[in-house]
């Protein structure tokens, strides 16, 4: 399936990933090549086949609802690009 530069721009927006305007057409070509190659999956009859969501036959295990970690702000903040007084400092979120 061929996708165009406008679609790449839209998808890049969804992925919060800037693709430079002068790269959009080239990226559209590369992605179209891959997506066209992928289309051969339509040859497979999958009528009535359950999607396989996991590689392991298991029920989701549960644990006791108790605190086992945390309470160490220094560790949590140690890789912060910007921090202040025990907080992550981030761009303004609410206008």
């Amino acid at each position: 399936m061929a996708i165009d530069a406008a679609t790449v721009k839209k998808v890049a927006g969804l992925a919060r990933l800037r693709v430079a305007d002068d790269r959009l057409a080239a990226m559209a070509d590369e992605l179209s090549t891959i997506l066209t190659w992928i289309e051969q999956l339509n040859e497979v009859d999958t009528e009535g086949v359950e999607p396989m969501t996991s590689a392991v036959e298991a029920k989701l295990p549960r644990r006791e609802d108790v605190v086992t970690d945390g309470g160490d702000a220094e560790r949590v903040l140690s890789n912060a690009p910007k921090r202040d007084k025990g907080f992550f400092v981030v761009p303004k979120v609410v206008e």
Partner: protein
Amino acid sequence: MAASTSLTLKAAIEGLRARAFSAEELARAHIAAIEQARALNAFILETPEKALADARAADARIARGDARPLEGVPLGIKDLFCTEGVRTTAGSNILNNFKPTYESTVTSHLWRDGAVMLGKLNLDEFAMGSSNETSALGPVVNPWRSRSSNQPLTPGGSSGGSAAAVAAELCLGATATDTGGSIRQPAAFTGTVGVKPTYGRCSRWGIVAFASSLDQAGPIARSVEDAAILLTSMAGHDPKDSTSLDVETPDFASFVGRPVKGLRIGVPKEYRVDGMPAEIEALWAAGIEWLKDAGCEIIDVSLPHTRFALPAYYIIAPAEASSNLARYDGMRYGLRVDEAAPLRDVYEATRAEGFGTEVQRRILIGTYVLSHGYYDAYYLKAQRVRRRIADDFASAFDRVDALLTPTAPSAAFGLGDRTSDPVAMYLNDIFTVTVNLAGLPGMSIPAGLDAHGLPLGLQLIGRPRDEGRLFSLGHALEQAAAFTAKPERWW
């Protein structure tokens, strides 16, 4: 016996226990070898001080008779495993200065067992690649060279650094990960043994996630027995990974040397692909004969959906990656770009600058196939094809105990040879991705050299949780192949 980097891991353990040499001597030999091998670019970060501290602690334990299973054994760690306090990059600019505040479960097992850390090994960025050419820290060079050319070759990927370091004798073994072939294909390209265990055998906690339903950690080593020893330490149920199998870890080394007489080996006809090099066909036929000689019964089988595995993988893996890599947003860790801009611009600029081209491509594909209007046609379709592929294997395993195939469709190729066409690069994984989709254990064993003197591997695929049988069969192949070739040192 002297402290040498040429020892097998098994021999080194014996030498340390027998006090033939100290862990510190062994660590120093490896540190020196690593310094001399920087041209390979296998290590992103060398940790010689940590290695010596680990080694001295090991010597103290050995002296008082308290040696643990890997006491004093120097290992390399793929830079996808979080190592507490030690820089972990995932081969990416977006994590260029990241220092984890916790240890991955798999590496914590290795330190629990007394291993020594030599450093963090290079890889394709976020494990996305088959040649170690997408790393933001530069490509890895295969220690092997063609007889007819000095052209630098790829060690394969994504665990290129791990495979190159083991082959060049810079460590006695290495951790690696495999999502579509990233342990097995580099092992084949470097003449080493690589094992991807059953999905869930090793904990994924603390491993930088690429595709959560496919990722699995495993060892790369210079012998089947060495790989078995490493996997026994790496594996084990982890309550922090809800996909971790709640089963006892067998002593995998005990399966090495067990007779394989009477085992039924399947040869899947769909793995004979158009354009397959004659040498690889010939090696596959040799492997079949070796197992026959060892008393195995050879049975032709069919895995009809084999050719759909790669396209299914290139929907599922990017989809899962687009979700897993959403966390790299410049807020809590990693790179942040364009600090003063509005929030959305910081996200977009950070990710555009921090991620390389292949990673961006896969995030975009993944986002597209999961987006409204396409989810059913692509993602659900791929999940259904995945079940068909898994069912093919399950049917085959009614009639056989293991499958034998080539590992890769070629020997190591030149750096830069396949970077212009993403699909050409993806085809490197044609024999390996099926195994990740089905969650099965797979192993690559070095089996021969091609006409240019480059290593070729054979792959064994087993039933879920049947790594033991693969170690027995792998050892039988290893004995028959008698692969003693080593890369000629040019560095």
